[in-house]
């Protein structure tokens, strides 16, 4: 396990400091270079099942536009990240399509709910498919999950797809798993994008 995966910091107002970026970058680099998952990092079957349930719940809440409930699946020190590159660039010197901390993510959800976010009026309908779900433990109560996604969308009659892979950092708090990082890796993130202002 890389050092980076251990250092994602606990929730504070200022959790998005340079060390946090360093940890995020290290996590992404580990995901990008991951080969076969070592035996000793495979989560126990019941943990894997719980993680799958969380992902399916997440997809279901997104598709049902139940965004406040979706937001509740994220931790206080969460990151929702939609990079503009497919090369794993350093977010400290690279803009993202979306790089949201908890505060910005809450703003997004709130704004989408106002009806004044014209790019989502009417809202984009989605159906999220998650597959190829791979999980690896990364310390006590922390699991990383990689999965492929296909999102079928319809915006005011215009059908289109988004696809790629998601990288999650999940943390267990009591009985529940929660999302610390969701990095949405569009397979064509570095190419012109259509309206992605819905929640992916």
């Amino acid at each position: 396990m890389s050092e980076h995966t251990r250092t994602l910091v606990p929730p504070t107002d200022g959790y998005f400091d340079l060390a946090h970026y360093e940890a995020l970058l290290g996590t992404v680099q580990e995901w990008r270079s991951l080969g076969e998952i070592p035996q000793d990092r495979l989560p126990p079957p019941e943990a894997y099942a719980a993680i799958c349930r969380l992902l399916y719940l997440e997809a279901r809440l997104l598709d049902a536009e139940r965004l406040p409930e979706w937001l509740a699946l994220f931790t206080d020190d969460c990151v929702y990240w939609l990079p503009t590159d497919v090369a794993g660039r350093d977010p400290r010197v690279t803009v993202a399509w979306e790089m949201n901390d908890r505060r910005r993510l809450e703003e997004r959800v709130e704004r989408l709910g106002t009806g004044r976010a014209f790019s989502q009026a009417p809202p984009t309908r989605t159906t999220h498919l998650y597959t190829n779900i791979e999980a690896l433990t990364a310390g006590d109560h922390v699991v990383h999950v990689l999965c492929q996604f296909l999102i079928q969308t319809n915006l005011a009659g215009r059908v289109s797809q988004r696809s790629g892979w998601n990288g999650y950092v999940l943390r267990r708090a009591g009985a529940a798993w929660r999302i610390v990082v969701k990095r949405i890796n569009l397979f064509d993130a570095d190419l012109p994008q259509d309206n992605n202002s819905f929640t992916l």
Partner: protein
Amino acid sequence: MYASPELFALEMRHLFGRTWVYVGHESEIPQPNDFVMRTMGRRPVILARKDDGSLSVLLNRCPHRGALMCRTPRGNARRFTCGYHAWTFENDGRCVGVPLRHAYGEAFQRSDQDMHAAAKVEAYRGFIFASMNAAVPPLIEHLAGARSSWTNGWTATAPAPCWCRTATCSSRPMRTGRRCTTMRAMATTRPSPTPRCCACSPSATATMWTCGITRRISTKSPILSKDLGNGHTLLDQRPAMHAVSAWRRQHVSPGREAAEEALTARYGAEETLRMLDASTGSGLNLNIFPNLLIIGNQIQMLEPVTVNRTIVRWFSTTLEGAPPEVNATRMRLQEDFPSFGEVDDTAQFESCQHGLEDVPEMEWVDIRRHMETGVGYPDTDGLWREPISSDLHLRCYYAAWRQVMEA
């Protein structure tokens, strides 16, 4: 004008063939033999730095059969070899290799087969422009009144020698009329979206529509719109944005508190505030006719695709040598408006395009705001200024458009 593929084709040929067109920033090709693929209108071109450090812009079309010579968006190469029949050219366009040369006959001269180059290539403060037309005036003359905005606004926020360099590039395609894109420059006043309007042609007029929010923009606002000549305009938000501290009035972003705390510990409060104020943006929307927009800390390059589709290539900028917290802050702030406002603007432009294409009974749009209210006057630098709520920038764009198209 918004809906005619024929007019679009003429525009690609003439508008992007007769004047200076922005093709890239020097920091994108820092090393000898670096190159990027670009367009001038619809023409595919290669922007390269030659071995001697000078710049070249080559039509990315093999003189032999027309294939794209270069199909890699960016890289480093001294020579380009066509993938079709392996004709080879230096990055200054010189033909240096033609397989089976004897088969082309006695009269065939390799030196007649060079790649076609742009007639002119010049850079101003790192911004590289090219023209297909050898008769264009010097770039510095073309930029006219825009030069002082560059000097006093854009570069002033990046103290020398730490000049801005382009960092990353994101692209947004829009299903919009190409002219609509000129309006994007209107859209950066925080915290709420500013008036957005839809452009026009000399032969049609323009629609200006409001969405309620526009009423908040007072004619008495200190921010202003300025005619810089030759179609270039400036929307200057500095009088409001940088009146006290742009950082203090800046919308929150990820890492705001952590960056301020870390910088203050190292540089003290005053210096930190100076750095963070500069990170929020230049306070300028500098619109360079016909395809470059410098907005805050971003560079936007417009790439027309079809009559109703434009790619906006959006470059963020970092400061070379700046503390890492400053650059991280710049990145997060440069995501702010694109994530929360620009997407809505784009949606509006797309909806305009729908109306303009699909309602043949209505030909006109309106860009008259403050045309006849008498509120404009020459500024101290002699350049014409109007309130920020004016459609001046649209009128300037189309006046230049008409001049170039009718030349």
